[in-house]
């Protein structure tokens, strides 16, 4: 049996599945239910200074559906906790006391004044919490007040606040980053420079999920108006994976512990984040969609997969995919594949043909009786046919063996690696050594 125990910057939890700071971790009742369901830890919904904020009394969430009303993304305009600070602190203390083996992290967001941070840190320490997470991420509402992503978008502020917090508390400091920037490495470097023990990412993406065409207003609509919200869920996972990988392989931040967030829905999502270097993952939208019980699947699935692969601990596979994330210029241009359509499993829908004929390289032929075949002499191996085919593994990309001739170029396939940096068409190419 795989050992799922997680040690993240010294914070221990029985598994790497934490609930992210968000509506599900807003109060004692929810968090107790989460721990009973088996979650390894929670990041308590962001605390702020009193007087506490208020929320809208109309809808707070918008949604993007896939087929069959499957939730792909949720957009949220809820603010940080709208309950008194002391209420939250009291609840955190009793829950941590009752669940000493679970990770209890407290998310914080107060104005950019040192005294605000040092004061609240003292109060959080009294709860016995295991660590804090600085919310520099939320893109809605709080950012208008100079907090949340307004801080996360300015590396100097990140570094400054992180430094204040590190100086003021014994607790590990996790800095939560916003994806609403152009290059995630700069805020990550700033957190690192400020002494952060870890970064967590991504927070939500600024978004409007849809427009109500009768009201002519964005959803969710509050009395005829809408505001951008924070987008989350499976739809943002690719953005999050890339940002995690960028930090994991950046020379300045390499090795900084990362808590991966963004669309984690199944054990596989978690394994992917961890393969890209994350020490654990945080989950919100999946829990909001399906309830806390989903953690059963995550735990069982990750454990079974680790057993199958022979990984005994999380560290055995964490970061294993990081060396394989590279820059485009280093990809092997001599690696040549061709699409191959399996006629036995093809259901003759023609989607591959439409995609290739209309939008790609006219590399698929169609017969009068709807037989679809790849024309190797035209196929550039773009993979689009594979992507749009509704039948898994019906179309595969087959590697051409060295020594064979690529009918598209007429050139022999070579075994040696060849990349853009040394390609003759590259004006700044250097000869291969």
């Amino acid at each position, binding site marked *: 049996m795989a050992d799922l125990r997680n040690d993240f910057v010294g914070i221990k939890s029985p598994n790497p599945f934490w609930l992210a700071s968000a509506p599900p971790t807003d109060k004692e009742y929810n968090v107790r239910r989460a721990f009973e369901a088996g979650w390894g830890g929670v990041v308590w919904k962001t605390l702020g200074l009193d007087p506490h904020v208020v929320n809208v009394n109309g809808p707070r969430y918008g949604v993007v559906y896939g087929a069959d009303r499957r939730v792909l993304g949720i957009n949220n305009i809820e603010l940080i906790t709208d309950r008194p600070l002391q209420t939250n602190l009291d609840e955190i203390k009793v829950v941590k006391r009752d669940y000493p083996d679970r990770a209890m992290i407290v998310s914080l967001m107060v104005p950019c004044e040192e005294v605000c941070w040092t004061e609240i840190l003292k109060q959080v320490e009294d709860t016995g919490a295991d660590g804090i997470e600085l919310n520099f991420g939320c893109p809605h509402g709080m950012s208008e007040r100079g907090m949340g992503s307004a801080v996360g978008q300015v590396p100097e502020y990140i570094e400054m606040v992180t430094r204040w917090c590190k100086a003021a508390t014994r607790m590990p400091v996790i800095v939560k980053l916003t994806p609403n920037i152009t290059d995630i490495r700069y805020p990550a470097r700033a957190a690192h420079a400020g002494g952060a023990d870890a970064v967590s990412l991504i927070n939500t993406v600024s978004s409007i999920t849809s427009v109500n065409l009768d009201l002519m207003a964005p959803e969710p609509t509050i009395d005829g108006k809408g505001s951008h919200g924070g987008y989350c869920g499976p739809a943002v996972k690719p953005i999050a994976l890339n940002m995690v990988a960028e930090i994991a392989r950046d020379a300045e931040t390499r090795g900084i512990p990362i808590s991966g967030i963004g669309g984690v829905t199944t054990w596989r999502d978690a394994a992917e984040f961890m393969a890209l270097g994350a020490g654990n993952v945080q989950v919100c939208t999946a829990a909001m969609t399906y309830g806390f019980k989903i953690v059963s*699947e995550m735990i069982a*699935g990750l454990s*079974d997969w680790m057993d199958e692969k022979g990984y005994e601990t999380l560290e055995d596979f964490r970061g294993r995919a990081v060396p394989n994330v590279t820059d485009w210029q280093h990809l092997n241009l001599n690696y040549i594949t061709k699409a191959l359509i399996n006629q036995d499993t093809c259901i003759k829908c023609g989607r591959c043909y439409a995609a290739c004929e209309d939008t790609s390289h006219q590399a698929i032929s169609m017969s009068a009786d709807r037989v679809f075949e790849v024309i190797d002499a035209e196929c550039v191996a773009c993979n689009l046919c594979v992507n749009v085919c509704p039948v898994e593994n019906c179309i595969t990309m087959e590697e051409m063996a060295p020594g064979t001739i690529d009918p598209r170029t007429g050139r022999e396939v070579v075994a040696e690696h060849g990349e853009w940096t040394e390609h003759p068409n590259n004006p700044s190419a250097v000869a291969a050594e």
Partner: protein
Amino acid sequence: MGTTQRQDGIVAGRLAPEAYAENFGDAYPPLNPHEALVAADRCYFCHDAPCIAACPTEIDIPLFIRQIQADSPKGAAKTILNQNILGGMCARVCPTETLCEEACVREAAEGKPVQIGALQRYATDTLMATGEHPYTRAAPTGKIIAVIGAGPAGLACAHRLAMHGHTVVVVDGREKPGGLNEYGIASYKTVDNFAQAEVEWLLKIGGIRIETGAVLGRDYTLEELCSDYDAVFLGMGLSGVNALMLEGADDHMSDAVDFIATLRQSDDLSQLPIGRRVVVIGGGMTAVDAAVQSKLLGAEDVTIVYRRGQDRMSASRHEQDHATSAGVRLICNAMPVRGASGGVEFEYTEETADGLRGTGETFVLEADQVFRAIGQTYADTPAAAAELERGKIRVDTEGRTSISGVWAGGDCALGGEDLTVTAVAEGRDAAESIHRTLAT
């Protein structure tokens, strides 16, 4: 040219040799991985899901389907088997249309439930194909328990006892273990000798010995068991069949359960005789299994006659549809009166305040062969000392009989529907009760 469908009498080889394999192949072929993913995608992962409540073994159905979605079919199988060690067979034979799938919220939404049974088969088949047995025995307790009957109840009980570290001896009167899974279910529901494969897989837990060919009351007594073992579980099912004597029809009338058992044990179906015109009397799953298999053996004309209205049949609507789509005719509200020349005379019935009554109007069905399928009984009383209630062994909520140290479950015990899945639940729960009792 040998015999044909149109030859009168009860004869073998009515069909071309190759037709038998086709007719008795898997009635509902398994889902392939793509089909399983498409089917699994429809599950809503309901909270406190109604399908779980509808399952006698309370399998966490939303969780196992989510595990299939998440590409962990073997994990899904474990979720199933944790609750129901015969989850593979139940996936094949459960009347899911009256259990989990009837409760599925998508039945309410679209009249099309998630294919829970087919998904369960996909998961359990995937695990069993690897040969893995994901359970291990606890340290031996030194206790030894006798389980009477190697059917679903006995096997489920034995496996759970073995998991807890007890040693189990399972005794069965037939030649092979499996009970009704082996002898009593239509062969197209459990092809490729699945019942025996499942028993072999189940025994991998270790600590279970099976002895066949010994019958309680004939070869040994309950008193002997009670003195030789730390506990006894009775799961021998129902060995009797309800009698139906029809003057003038006895020479071509037999019990459907015997016909099904013979068919299941036949290794050459072309040698199995069947009538040209077959009448099956009864309204349950045994009637459907006998009728459909008669048709598949080449009977030209097969009719199920049930004495009450169609809605009272214990075979589900799905089973009835399966029969009619196989070409079986269904006649309801008619009861047999006497054998007639070359057939059986029936009288139409009606439900009255005083019960079922003949209307006086009769008809004759031609029949070379008549099967009785009007229910089974706890015939003799081999466990005589155990008190009965309504003809079955009385048990409490934990499966304890009136005799200290003796538990019972499955069809021979009172309570629950006579289903494989119910027997599994009762056997499992009795094992937990035995374990608790022996631990104190």
